[in-house]
């Protein structure tokens, strides 16, 4: 396990389906990339399965910056998961 839990934050229908706006989770060492994280979370229960059914559509930001799914998550303070944006 990593030394410190990682803060995960969720928005829009990802937040609604998971059922909470944020949480702190200790991520297993084998969760190295964003894609690993999405697949690991998806296996944590029905609410995660509902939110992350199609992990490829989920947008991710690390420390307030957009990243792609190959990005390494080591050292992340805050990882955000959300649907494609619809502002403007």
């Amino acid at each position: 396990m990593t030394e410190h839990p990682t803060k995960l934050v969720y928005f829009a229908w990802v937040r609604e389906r998971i059922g909470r706006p944020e949480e702190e989770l200790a991520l297993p060492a084998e969760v190295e990339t964003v894609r690993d994280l999405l697949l690991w979370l998806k296996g944590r229960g029905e609410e995660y399965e509902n939110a992350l059914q199609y992990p490829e559509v989920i947008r991710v930001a690390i420390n307030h910056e957009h990243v792609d799914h190959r990005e390494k998550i080591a050292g992340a303070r805050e990882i955000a998961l959300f649907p494609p944006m619809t502002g403007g």
Partner: protein
Amino acid sequence: MTAHATPLVRIQREDFDTEAEISRLTRGRADIGAVVTFTGLCRDEAGQLAALELEHYPGMAEAEISRIAAEAIERWPLQGLSAIHRFGRIAPGENIVLVVAASAHRQAAFEAANFMMDYLKSRAPFWKKEHRTDGSEGGWVEAKETDDAAAARWRR
């Protein structure tokens, strides 16, 4: 003036005053020849929308719009650039977003405002949820592929 203008970025619940924002960029200056403003409004096409609920990611919304504005400032010769995005419950006809771009000649202001909006739509962390006039939730607005395509045309 050779130094880059400092963009103004605000994320707020309350409405904005377009005239005041134009004046903020132009007041006391004679070197601005063009101001382009874009205002995005809450639209109701079918008479069924009571309001949009705009959710945002505090902290990242400011950071991402500031990054987009910094790129616009670097790409076009601008005398001023402002972007204001509202969040919370917004009724049809109300303002959602404002971009003001000021430059010596019109083309830079037009292009920078267009660029700002294309990038805001596909990269600023905001999500719209519909509330219907019958009291039901209309669900989350789906992102359009055309918005991604619009942003892609600015890639260098």
